[in-house]
């Protein structure tokens, strides 16, 4: 090989694609590898909700910063990326779910994110198909949705236009100091290495605390206007939080096509992608409880995907000590689409030595964490 790129990025999901663009924009030469094609992994299975989440202050800081970066990115992306700022409406069944919501509004505001409490009457005005009798809602107007595989494709095209060498259909089988090994038996020299291989990252870095957390999604026929904002029940927070047991929550997304994308479920079953019909039934019951008209939509397809989950629900972004110049960008669980631009900025800052836009320490891959088995138990 004639040249050794400054950085080799492994994985062209949304995280690797955004990182490759950031590195190329910083003037570094980049080699980008994907075992299949850009967006073929978890990115191609995801809902594409761009969402501010505040489970922990660190999660709020990174989601808020990333959503801000999405705002800048969005106008430059092609139509096919289907970016719509439809907002998130968090539906509360019981008044106690809204307890403490004032503090959340204050915390969001500190990051420049607008949020408000919406009373039942206004919820029903905005979403006439939501069931009556709710306690109200938490409204985050600045959240949006995108079509993730198209964004991955667009970003990889952009990286290539900036000079990155894109290797689609090339699987990396091992990494060594300043070298990667490919499935075809060849070896390529590398400068810095960024592993952004999503749920498959532990295959390249044994011991990396990432496990696949399965989710189901259902897509319906076109029913324009049935739902206008992304609807999530407050119970979703508990569902996303508990790592151990299987859970479902109402999560309904309006697509630009007029279709509804319905989630969500969470289970830890390794890489078994088969449809769990018991869980799926519970998931659809949840959706129909909040939006009864979901029952009359026609279902086109159901699929499953895997979220790259970590024991403390924060991503792994930064240097990994097992090899020199090895960087990790994964473990985003159900937020990797949202978090891709922020993650890219943190990696670029780390590799170039420039100041980071937000404090990177909460995401340091070698931070102390509960072990996976403790977290699951």
């Amino acid at each position, binding site marked *: 090989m004639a040249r050794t790129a400054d950085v080799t990025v492994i994985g062209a999901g949304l995280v690797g694609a955004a990182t490759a663009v950031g590195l190329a924009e910083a003037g570094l030469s980049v080699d980008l590898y994907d075992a299949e*094609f850009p*967006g073929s992994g978890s990115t*191609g299975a995801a809902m594409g909700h761009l969402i501010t989440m505040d489970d922990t202050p660190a999660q709020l800081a990174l989601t808020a910063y990333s959503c801000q970066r999405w705002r800048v990115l969005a106008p430059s992306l092609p139509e096919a990326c289907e970016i719509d700022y439809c907002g998130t409406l968090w539906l509360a069944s019981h008044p106690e779910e809204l307890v403490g919501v004032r503090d959340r509004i204050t915390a969001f505001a500190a990051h420049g994110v607008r949020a408000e409490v919406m009373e039942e009457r206004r919820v029903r005005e905005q979403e006439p198909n939501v069931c009556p009798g709710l306690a109200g809602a938490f409204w985050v107007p600045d959240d949006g949705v995108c079509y993730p595989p198209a964004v991955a494709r667009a970003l990889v095209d952009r990286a290539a236009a900036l000079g990155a060498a894109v290797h689609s259909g090339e699987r990396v089988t091992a990494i060594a100091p300043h070298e990667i090994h490919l499935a075809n038996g060849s070896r390529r020299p590398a400068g810095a290495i960024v592993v952004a291989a999503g749920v498959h990252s532990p295959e390249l870095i044994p011991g990396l605390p990432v496990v696949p957390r399965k989710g189901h999604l259902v897509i319906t026929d076109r029913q324009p206007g049935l739902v206008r904002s992304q609807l999530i029940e407050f119970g979703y927070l508990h569902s996303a939080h508990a790592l151990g047991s299987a859970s479902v929550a109402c999560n309904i997304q309006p697509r630009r096509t007029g279709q509804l994308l319905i989630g969500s479920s969470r289970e830890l079953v390794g890489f078994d992608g088969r*449809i769990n019909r018991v869980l799926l039934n519970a998931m659809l019951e949840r959706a129909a409880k909040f939006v009864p008209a979901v*029952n009359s939509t*026609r*279902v086109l397809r159901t699929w499953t995907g895997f979220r790259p989950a970590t024991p403390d629900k924060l991503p792994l972004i930064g240097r990994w000590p097992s090899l020199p110049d090895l960087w990790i960008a994964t473990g985003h669980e159900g937020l990797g689409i949202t978090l891709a631009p922020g993650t890219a900025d943190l990696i670029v800052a780390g590799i170039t030595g420039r100041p980071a836009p937000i404090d990177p320490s909460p995401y340091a891959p070698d931070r102390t964490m509960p072990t996976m088995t403790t977290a699951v138990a």
Partner: protein
Amino acid sequence: MRRVRHADVVVIGAGPAGLAAASAAAERGRSVLLVDQGLRPGGQIWRHRDEQALPSAARRLMARARNAGVKLVSGCRLVDAGSPNELVIDFRGRIDRHQTDAVIIATGARERFIPFPGWTLPGVTGIGGLQALLKGGLPVADTRIVLAGSGPLLLSVAAAVAQAGGRVQLVGEQAGAAALRRFAIRVLRDPAKLRQAISYRWACRSAPFRTDTWAVRAHGDGRLQSVEVSERGHLRSIRCDWLGIGSGLVPNTDLGQLLQCQVEHGAIAVDALQATSVAGVWAVGECTGVKGDEAATIEGEIAGRAAAGDAAGAGSTALQAARDSGRRFGRLLEETFAPRPEVLALATPDTILCRCEDVPMRSVDPGWTPRQAKLWARVGMGVCQGAVCGPSCTALFGWSANTVRPPLGNPSCGEWKSGLDSAD
């Protein structure tokens, strides 16, 4: 509450293959449920409004199924299957779960379309679709109709159009004269097929039939007005009200894929007794390879016996010889009517490839995988889930079939949900 029922054997599809399979199993003492989404049994070939008007072979087979005690349910669809033993069936809006020991897939074939400019204009329809419209009573008296495509279906639909009073302007067969002669020689050896061919040709005797002929472009302002055809190397334009198109049939393997049966060369793979790679699942008729109704009936007979535990009967020398002969005929069909390179090259960058999602040819790259085309360009993501564009892509780009995910056939969310297992 959803009901859970039981049948020893469940047959999906009541065409010739499914009817024969269901009868053979029921005659051997099995309880048999025969499910079809059509309004009446008979499949594509024996689609009818009046049973008395059907050919005697069809009437005999239907009477046989009735006498054997087959429970036939029409207007019902299989929508999901958690395993081969657990079928979810939509009984006209009510979902039932069926437990069974044996499944026989007899879901038939689909039409294959090779896109060309204008093929999505209203007034252009599949030849099989046109035939269904005719049988449903579409008035065609004194309308001008052009049929252009490939395969035996062309002639049978031309006959039906002529019988209904339509004026067939042209029957264009893309296959060459030499290939068609070889095919005809084989048909001459088969009295039943010969009789059928002669009767079709007689029925549409006033229509010009041309080999080496295909539609190049359909014209019209909002609706079809004329079609440009390439007729033995010369272009000419024909005014018409309907254009029937179709480049042959391809197996409908959806249910086989859903049940994880092995699919080879676009057909559900089966052994000599029509068993698939999955225990307890058989497949018969066109879904295992296109070869006509006689062969489909033979395969149904074999699988019905085998599924009822009569392996000796299923393996009988006479049945096996007939089966082999049917398979040979299927291979000949495939060779004779394979889309030719000129036809595969008709689409322009603006020609629609995926109708459901309005995807033009220029949006896809032949070097992609089918999954890439789906995720990047929405090919096959729509209501038909690739039933139409899948076979086109296979012919054009050599892509393998789209993956099949539940549910089949777009049930309503409420219906489908009620067929899923619940925790309680």
